[in-house]
């Protein structure tokens, strides 16, 4: 197929070309500059983190062979040839996994309750006083920025070793994270129902209960389920600092080089996380329609 393309006269073309080149070259220069700054930052970072490519490459083999070793039983055969031997401690591990799940469940629920109480005070449109809002927001920020495991470390000293410290750490972190997400939902809520309820002479509590809550409750549940999923992952390491759950068992296995135990526990954690992921996804889909899944 032939087609005629009308070419612009040369001078016009040259002017356009010139302008295009200028525009592109300015952008290219900016990208190049940004890239240079970034590479410089990386170089400084590499220096600071004691990155040594030589050790990395000489140890990379170790990484592969580490996975080779954790997939071998003591007698040298592959783990999946003898499942009974691989998962020899499954009763104990299942119990600890159950404890991990309970830690994240109780922690998430407690966090959700506190977040529920606090979020109306933190949201722009429902908070009654400016100073109160500022204070609540800072508290939530603090609770969510300090990593959960740091709280766990401190709580282990205050409340003693055991899952209680883990639960409280998960609860505080969830309060911070959920409080922010909840208050964002409230800020997106429609305020007309609130005016309607207020015009009947209702107080603040009734406004929240009858005008705001029906709009936001589904979003709350969805975020809380999502948080539960994240917390399951997080409470699997609470045992590293003595705050209960499967982590204790895992850290011992890794530190003492019980290779096949490491892989067995990791497999159990991953499978548990999968099951929780899929079931909370299913639950959110059932409760709030397909959109809420992502």
């Amino acid at each position, binding site marked *: 197929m032939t087609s005629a393309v009308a070419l612009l006269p040369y001078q016009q073309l040259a002017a356009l070309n010139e302008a295009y080149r200028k525009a592109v070259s300015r952008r290219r220069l900016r990208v190049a500059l940004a890239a240079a700054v970034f590479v410089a930052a990386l170089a400084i*970072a590499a220096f600071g983190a004691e990155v040594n490519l030589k050790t990395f490459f000489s140890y990379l083999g170790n990484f592969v062979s*580490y996975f080779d070793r954790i997939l071998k039983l003591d007698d040298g055969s592959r783990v999946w040839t003898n499942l009974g031997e691989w998962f020899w401690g499954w009763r104990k591990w299942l119990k600890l996994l159950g404890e991990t799940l309970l830690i994240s469940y109780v922690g998430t629920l407690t966090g959700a309750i506190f977040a529920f109480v606090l979020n109306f005070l933190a949201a722009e449109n429902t908070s009654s006083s400016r100073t109160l809002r500022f204070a609540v927001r800072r508290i939530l920020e603090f609770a969510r920025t300090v990593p959960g*495991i740091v709280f766990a*470390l401190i709580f282990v000293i205050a409340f003693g070793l055991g899952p209680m410290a883990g639960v409280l750490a998960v609860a505080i972190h969830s309060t911070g994270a959920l409080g922010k997400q909840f208050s964002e939902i409230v800020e997106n809520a429609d305020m007309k129902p609130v005016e309607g309820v207020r015009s009947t002479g209702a107080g603040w509590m009734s406004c929240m209960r009858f005008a705001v809550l029906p709009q936001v409750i589904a979003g709350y549940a969805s975020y809380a389920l999502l948080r539960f999923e994240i917390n399951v992952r997080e409470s699997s*390491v609470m045992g590293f600092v003595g705050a209960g759950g499967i982590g204790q068992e895992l850290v011992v296995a890794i530190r003492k080089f019980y290779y096949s135990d490491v892989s067995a526990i990791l497999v159990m954690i*991953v499978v548990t996380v999968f099951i929780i992921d899929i079931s909370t996804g299913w639950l959110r889909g059932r409760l709030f329609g397909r959109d809420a899944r992502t």
Partner: protein
Amino acid sequence: MSRLPLQQTAELRAKYPDIFHRPAASRLATPAAALTAFAVFIFGLVDLDFSPTRFVSGLRELGWISMMMIPPDPGSSLPLYLKALGETLSIALLGTTLAALLALPVGLFAARNVIPSQLLRFPVRRFFDSIRGVDTLIWALVWINVVGLGPFAGVLAITVSDFGAFGKLFSEAIEAADQRQVEGVRASGGSKLHEIRFGLLPQVLPVIAGQVLYFIESNTRSASIIGIVGAGGIGLQLAEQIRVLEWQKVSFLVLMILVAVAVIDFISGKLRFAIIGRRAAA
């Protein structure tokens, strides 16, 4: 207010039976679910050794600890802490960058519009999911066994665990890209590689850059705790000072982490807005 005539209510009842006579099952579903949730909660409290006396004495202890934390004071170890903080920031930056570089090509393989074959895509997806199922701290422990104690193990731990998260996010971003540009490149005679380079990447890169910047912030937080297991950074100092009950130093270290995270958050937010525009980032 006037009431509806009786006849009309009867009519309404006949018209909307679901509203006037909800079956018991649907009426009881919500209270039953709430009751179950509450029962599991109570079971959890009992099973996890919660006791009021322990809670109260723990709170008293905690109050005492908080009193001891004021005022935050680094003592004479400020230079040491600053160096540890620098290490933490380095770990976060390097780990995130490495993970992004590794995850981009693999993310392509997990995207539906690049690899149509379900058979090839499924294992890649599951692979990402299993990596994400394992917490960063666990990866840190594994890498310590491989490359020894120190920040390098931390970099690798962040790299691996972010690799899982990025793989998923990137492949989702790629799937959301507009297919018409890819088709345009193909129509003008481009190869598969050209399609990806000129059709897909220009759409996807800003989204990906935004996600990477967002992760640098959350990784600063992760990098500040992996020291607890010995993988370098400020977490090592923090765990040590908590163990020896130097509470003023602990509160100072926590403050340092908070400030660092806030600063990184500010910078990465600014950069994100610069790259993808204010509306898209919000």
